[in-house]
């Protein structure tokens, strides 16, 4: 056997041995997964039963009414929390229960979380090197409303990891409430849509007084934050931000100006209809801006005031703009038919096709 042949054979043997090792790993992993799943289910069941009795049976859950039962309940639970796995499972259960409970019951869950030293466990995660542990800690502290953790969270907000940064941003808004603007002042990094989605989801569930006044964010130097604030101010119909939005119609960033026009339209700011039209005239060729302006005028405008502007867009280069202009003219009860006759002298039958489309009830 030559050296080449020996090398090839040894390589083959090594590959077979590694493959065998992989097979053993797969089978062991199956066993481990089954055992873990069983243990998880058992512990979860036991914890949930205790929690149910705590939440439903009245005399145990009030420390003032029955301090002994309360202490016994906590001590009993504490004995079950020797491993981090159990602590984490309980935190997950508390969080999922808290999401469906509010007021007094939500407060009691929070009390259990603090008394069982689980807050300290979550806080300790913020100092770990692993980003996912940090994120998990941030979520837990935010969900349980631990405002005293804000300084640590703020430190993470200035960190390098974008995922940790995003999570701490959300946590700060959740915990900082109406005053959270101060915390994110000077933030100059992007605000991805994912953060916006999550923030909106959270803010939709809290009381109005906990929602930040987004008008203050409108003057931020961060374009992403500005855009987000416009969307949120519109979503929560914060009418006090209308003057600021009107000023933003003159923003150098066309996207921001278009978004402001859209928001003014959605919020019914009829007094700014002419300013919106003026913005539209300045950027006739911009498809996205034209769409925002047309839609805003469709909400706010008066037929006689905007007929000319909207009819110009029937010959816009973008098919979507053409369609939107006709749709909004119809909305404002402007008679498109007269205009159609004029336009059809020089064009094909596209306008009639659009007209039939927008008149069809099933396509509305």
């Amino acid at each position, binding site marked *: 056997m030559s050296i080449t042949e020996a090398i090839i054979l040894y390589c083959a043997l090594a590959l077979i041995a590694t493959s065998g090792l992989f097979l053993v790993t797969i089978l062991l992993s199956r066993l481990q997964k089954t055992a873990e799943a069983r243990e998880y289910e058992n512990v979860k069941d036991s914890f949930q039963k205790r929690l149910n009795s705590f939440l439903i049976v009245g005399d145990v859950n009030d420390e003032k009414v029955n301090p002994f039962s309360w202490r016994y309940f906590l001590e009993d639970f504490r004995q079950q929390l020797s491993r981090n796995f159990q602590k984490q499972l309980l935190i997950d259960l508390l969080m999922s229960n808290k999401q469906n409970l509010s007021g007094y019951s939500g407060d009691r869950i929070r009390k259990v979380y603090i008394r069982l030293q689980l807050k300290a466990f979550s806080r300790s995660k913020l100092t770990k090197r692993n980003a996912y542990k940090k994120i998990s800690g941030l979520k837990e502290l935010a969900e349980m409303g631990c405002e005293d953790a804000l300084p640590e969270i703020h430190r993470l907000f200035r960190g390098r990891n974008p995922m940790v940064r995003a999570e701490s941003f959300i946590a700060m808004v959740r915990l900082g409430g109406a005053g959270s603007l101060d915390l994110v002042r000077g933030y100059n990094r992007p605000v991805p849509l994912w953060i916006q989605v999550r923030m909106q989801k959270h803010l939709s569930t809290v009381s109005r007084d906990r929602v930040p006044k987004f008008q203050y964010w409108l003057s931020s130097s961060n374009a992403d934050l500005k855009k987000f604030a416009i969307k949120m101010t519109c*979503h929560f119909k914060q009418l006090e931000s209308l003057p600021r939005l009107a000023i933003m119609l003159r923003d150098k960033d066309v996207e921001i100006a278009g978004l402001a026009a859209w928001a003014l339209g959605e919020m019914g700011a009829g007094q700014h209809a002419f300013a919106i039209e003026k913005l539209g005239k300045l950027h006739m060729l911009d498809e996205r801006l034209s769409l925002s302006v047309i839609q805003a005028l469709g909400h706010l405008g008066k037929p006689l005031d905007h007929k000319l502007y909207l009819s110009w867009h029937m010959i816009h280069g973008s098919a979507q703009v053409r369609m939107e202009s006709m749709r909004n003219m119809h909305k404002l009860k402007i008679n498109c038919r007269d205009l159609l006759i004029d336009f059809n002298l020089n064009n094909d039958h596209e306008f009639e096709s659009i007209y039939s489309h927008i008149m069809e009830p099933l396509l509305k």
Partner: protein
Amino acid sequence: MTNVAFYFQSGLSIMFTVYAAVILIAYLSLAIISLYEMKRYLTNAKITDFKSILTSPFAPGISLIAPAYNEGLSVIDNVKSLLSIMYSDLEVLIINDGSKDNSMDKLIEAFSLVKVPFHIRHLIRTKPVKGVYKSKNRAFKNLIVVDKENGGKADALNVGINISSKELVACIDVDCIIERDALLKMVHPFLNSPVPVIATGGVVRIANSCVIEDGRLISVRLPEKQIVRFQTLEYIRAFLIGRMAWSKMNGLMLISGAFGLFRKDIAQKAGGYSTHTVGEDMELVMRMRAYMYKNKLPHKVVYVPEPLCWTEAPSDYKILSRQRNRWTRGTLETLHAHRKMFFNPAYGVVGMISYPFWFFFEWLAPLVEFSGLGFMIYQVLSGNVNLFFCFALLLAVYTFSFFISMTALLAEEFSYSPYKRKRDVMKLVWTALLEPVLFHPRGVWSAVQGNFDLLKGKKSWGEMTRQGFAQSPGKITLTASV
């Protein structure tokens, strides 16, 4: 032996050895990167609440486009399944591509459809549309059915893109089974990535032998037929080991035609699906990327390593051979259409790494393998190489192939392993042992045939008719035939 013949043979031997070494190293590197990325994704997915997207007004709208051709047997179940997908701003577009069966009548009856004067923007040129239908029933208000002249899958998808009113388009095969939360997971990279994402794709899995009820996957089972199991293993390997690594390097060139999510504006600007190739899925991704590179726009094509789509695999060798033949022709056509990307730094990772990889190791590999085997047999017969060396070499290749399959199975074990029984693992290991001998050579032969067929000018897909879902009381087990 003359000197010329000797040098020629030595040259060939060195060439084959170098080629084999490079391909082994390339696959090993892809496997390592994929495993690392997979771990990262899984940890990330654990802490991501995808359902936040469901109620958000900021999430982009999606049009789900499903072309249907002679799908009368299963079209109603499939459409119902698509309508039940979780996503708030969703429209479902079914494009009847000139079916010769009663698909259209069935759809009209089942969903109370009426013809509407829909204004179509012909941004991409397509075959004429006969009519657009909407349901009178408000429960199906997000369903649009388009009846058009037959023009092939690519043409039907283009009609869908023209009609779509949403920001993103999900192009799927109507007979595929899509997981209910698939769109939430596919849209997540569009929301979260700092670099604009133009397309995402997910893992496609084989549904043969699985239990299906009302167009929904109820229970996952390993296919009973060995030929389908071979393909199951092949899919696991391709989706878990290859694509994750390409996605990490931002060099992904292919998003499976069975299920992909695209930014509509970019797909339109790139010209939509090409009707001149049988590999339209890969060609669209390449063209969208070419458009972005040409306009110097940063972009990403992202791969989501979760089984989000289940499809039916060919269950006999005749259809399988036809499918592989088509895949080879599609690859070659696409590579040829975008040949200016080849080692072109203007196209970034795609031009410098992905395209050459596809050229040398996807398209060329079956040809090299076929000619290498012929060369080896010749060498043995002419006595230039001893039998023991030949045996050692074949053993090494065989064990490497087995090793890569085992790596894929290991990756699957630590990700979303749908096959829960230990028996299934052993069956897959057995499949991995048999595959290099019983299945792979057939694939190589189909690919070689595909190359010759393309040279002869063959352009057709090869007609596929389906038996549909074999009905059994309450439950359905997916079976297929031609």
